[in-house]
């Protein structure tokens, strides 16, 4: 660490200490504490002054969060507002007007306003740019009609990041615009989308003559694809970049079962578990190494490779777990349709884990799309022949 870096660390630690001295985390009002932390630039330290940050390197965030957590500081609704914090916020910061940043970032960070994402459509999954939801200009407003799917938390979200087609006469990537959509206005109809687990973790959102002020357009008209891509890159880093402790997540669950229920062991399952244990440990190390690279400012599409591994391991481990459980693997907890707030694999039964993990290779970019990304952007292999690149969207065969 250079002398400058050491000084920066010390300064930051002092700021946190000062803040905590002025705002007792255990007695302060929760919202007041969070708003004050934002105003002190200790929310996202890499964000600019005035927008919750201090303009510091991203690598310092972890340290700040740890210091606050250790002091028992209140949580800013982190789990329920993952899309807001991980995806909407950096996009608003990068593409928003000053006014938009002032209006949206603070209540987003404090968790007062939870966000969801309205991107995917039934006909536009992997081919997201094919989306058909239309936004038509009407004075200072846009009138939006269409259907979105795979929306996490739409029923409890206050705002959404939304991409819609504003110009059908140009090729598909060029006719999209990006909006910040109020989920409480008329015409927004959120319906639960039940999954194979029995639960409705996602929603379908039907948009009928929804009016969005032009002031809530993010980025230029027609720039929607570029803005959405920035959002999705943040998602993939978020999904792929975490590297917890050894035996974190699914592998820990299965290892525990192995240790606690010796009568279930067989030599075949033993070697399979060891293989997956090794792969999970290697994935953890790979994630740690990737985070070290990112901290040095070498971000890139490599996070996609992590997500591939994470999805495969979750699926293989949860599949093995059912074989290990044998008779008990044939039993399920409950098929009742509920709308869970949070997805936590480790606290649920093995059957749920097995089924839910199937989504890991679909949500946030299918494994097939991620392999394309790695092949093209990391390895420099040629892109697929694109037959629809220069064709106006309205002329494409759907």
């Amino acid at each position, binding site marked *: 660490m250079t002398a400058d870096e050491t000084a920066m660390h010390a300064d930051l630690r002092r700021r946190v200490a000062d803040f905590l001295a002025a705002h007792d985390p255990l007695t302060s009002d929760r919202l007041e504490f969070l708003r004050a932390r934002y105003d002190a630039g200790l929310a996202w330290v890499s964000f600019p002054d005035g927008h919750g940050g201090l303009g510091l390197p991203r690598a310092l965030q972890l340290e700040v969060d740890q210091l606050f957590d250790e002091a028992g500081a209140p949580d800013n609704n982190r789990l329920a507002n993952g899309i807001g914090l991980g995806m909407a916020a950096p996009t608003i910061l990068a593409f928003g007007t000053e006014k938009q940043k002032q209006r949206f970032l603070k209540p987003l960070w404090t968790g007062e306003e939870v966000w969801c994402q309205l991107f995917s459509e039934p006909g536009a999954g992997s081919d997201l740019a094919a989306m058909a939801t239309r936004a038509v200009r009407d004075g200072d407003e846009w009138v939006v009609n269409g259907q979105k799917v795979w929306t996490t938390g739409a029923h409890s979200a206050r705002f959404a990041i939304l991409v819609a087609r504003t110009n059908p006469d140009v090729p598909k990537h060029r006719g999209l615009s990006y909006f910040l959509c109020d989920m409480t206005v008329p015409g927004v109809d959120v319906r639960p989308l039940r*999954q194979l687990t029995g639960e409705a973790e996602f929603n379908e959102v039907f948009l009928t003559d929804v009016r969005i002020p032009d002031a809530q357009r993010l980025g230029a008209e027609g720039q929607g694809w570029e803005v959405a891509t920035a959002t999705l890159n943040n998602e993939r880093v978020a999904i792929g970049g975490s590297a917890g402790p050894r035996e974190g997540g699914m592998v820990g669950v299965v290892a525990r079962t192995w240790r606690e229920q010796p009568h279930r062991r*067989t030599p075949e399952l033993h070697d399979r578990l060891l293989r997956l244990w090794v792969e999970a440990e290697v994935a953890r190390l790979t994630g740690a190494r990737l985070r070290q690279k990112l901290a040095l400012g070498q971000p890139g599409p490599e996070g996609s490779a992590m997500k591939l591994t994470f999805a495969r391991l979750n699926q293989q481990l949860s599949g093995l777990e059912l*074989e290990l459980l044998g*008779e008990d693997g*044939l039993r399920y907890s409950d098929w009742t349709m509920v709308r869970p707030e949070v997805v936590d694999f480790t606290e649920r039964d093995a059957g749920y884990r097995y089924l839910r993990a199937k989504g890991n290779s679909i949500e946030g970019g299918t494994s097939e799309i991620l392999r394309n990304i790695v092949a093209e952007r990391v390895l420099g292999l040629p892109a697929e022949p694109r037959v629809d690149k220069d064709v106006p969207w309205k002329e494409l*065969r*759907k």
Partner: protein
Amino acid sequence: MSDPDLLYSDVEDDLRASVRDLLADRCEPAAVIAMYDGDRSLVDGLWKALAAEMGLAGLLVPEERGGVGASAREAAVVLEELGRAVAPVPFLTSAVIASAVLLDAEGDLLAALASGERTAALAVPLSTAPDDAIPAARADAGGRLTGAFTSVAGALEADVLLVPAANGESVGVYAVPASAASIRPVVSLDMTRQLADVTVDGAAGELVVADGERAVRRALQAGAALLASEQVGVARWCLDTTVAYLNERRQFGRVVGGFQALKHRLADLYTGVESANAAARYAAVTLATGDPDASIATAVAQAFCGDLAVTAAEEAVQLHGGIGMTWEHPAHLYLKRAKADQLALGTPGVHRARLANLIDISAPRMTAEPAGVATAVDDSHLTG
């Protein structure tokens, strides 16, 4: 030709067509999905049509015992179709396993099963492999049974339970009216073959098979051999449906099925399904002919088809993308059936371990090798 015939006869093709037509009419995916929400109204009528009207309940029962006197070849074809439709009927549990238990039994219970008049279930956990310890109740001198059995398949559809019970020295199989037992439904991974926990608490049972262990093992073995055909049916639906979907779905201006990475995966899946078909067919044929190779054939088929069906269902869900994850799309029915089938009657790993003994590929002896120092003196090297 010395190889056993692994193809389908014209009669088998006709049987398949009849079963498939009936299932297309009367076993719609939406009704099957509803079973996960507790609506089991589909089952009775469907089973009646298959068992009694089409006569499938008696397929494996000799004519002189009131059945059709067909063979495992035909039963395998039926199971392929039932798997293909994830049909929630107790064919495997009653017409295959329970009937096999009763094959040497006196009395007219087997004939009642064959006619479809009655339906039976063997009271062991669905996960029991043919070589596993067989759970048994206790029978007192008056034939009253006491015991509990978990995760029993077919019990919810049965009106008579076949209960293994220890009476003095041996284990017999007793017939117990379902009404005399406590049958508690279990929330199951596969609700199209929903399990139940069964308790008998002094219920009167009729001894129907004296050498119960032999009969139960034979029945589980037959069940395992034919389960492979169900797994083939599940896998084939997954392959066919995925190919059809990908030939229709467009993304990036192209038919998705034209993307080479998906084509190659489907080619591999096709190869796997064809392989599973051959393995399951051979297991059925050896069972039909009483071939001594049936034990190996069954272990091979279960070791292969159990995993293959899961792979097929997992690929189907993945390659359908988001829609394959939804409750409305039937893909999840196949995933759950395939995974439950993999655990049923012994996992593939269990069957490989059984196979090891049959083919003389023995496990290593488990002596912990002492990590020490060995003297490396090879006197033959010391002549120069």
